[in-house]
């Protein structure tokens, strides 16, 4: 079926540096999401995005986080500056309606 692609699959970055996680959603999907999963734990909602705007964000979505989807290209999550506790797997998802997500394969971020 249609896939959500995430680039890169792995990223190691020094604490304090900026990182951008890229997501190429399913082409006709309208809703976009980022989730954070620490190893062995559940996925936690970060933010969702629709019609060019953030609809809702959780308390995990710190001021250092930002999302955008310029001109219908990649849906990006930027963290600036990164902190050690940002190490996790970040999953992007998209959906046509606000249910039945398709998840990407995740970006494994390690902040050192």
């Amino acid at each position, binding site marked *: 079926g249609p896939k959500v692609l995430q680039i890169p699959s792995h990223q190691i970055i020094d604490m304090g540096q900026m990182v951008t996680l890229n997501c190429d959603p399913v082409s006709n999907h309208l*809703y976009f999401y980022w989730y954070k999963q620490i190893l062995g*734990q*559940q*996925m936690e909602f970060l933010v969702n995005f629709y019609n060019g705007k953030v609809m*809702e964000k959780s308390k995990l979505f710190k001021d250092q986080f930002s999302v955008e989807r310029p001109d219908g290209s990649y849906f990006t999550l930027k963290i600036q500056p990164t902190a050690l506790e940002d190490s996790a797997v970040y999953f992007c998802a998209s959906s046509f309606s606000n*249910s*039945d*997500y398709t998840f*990407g394969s995740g970006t494994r971020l390690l902040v050192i």
Partner: protein
Amino acid sequence: QQQVRQSPQSLTVWEGETAILNCSYEDSTFDYFPWYHQFPGESPALLIAIRPVSNKKEDGRFTIFFNKREKKFSLHIADSQPGDSATYFCAASGPGNTGKLIFGLGTTLQVQP
């Protein structure tokens, strides 16, 4: 406060048995309840989902039972196969139609041949 509770944390069944995974939720306005499975190193994949208009939904060997009054729902995997071994997450959609999913902590299922 965990809004979606999932049990057991881990479950081992023999091939051919029915595995039963349980979830409960707090917010009575939740209106969408999916189950995802996740294999190690892979992304979660939607398995089956239900809305409160129904109390049961079947898809092949997978059945969701839903109890609105008790705010519980369960996933039954009939005739379990070793290939079903994975982590299963239940979830619920938050109110307000934003599509935000609140996940349970997951059940690691092991099906022994």
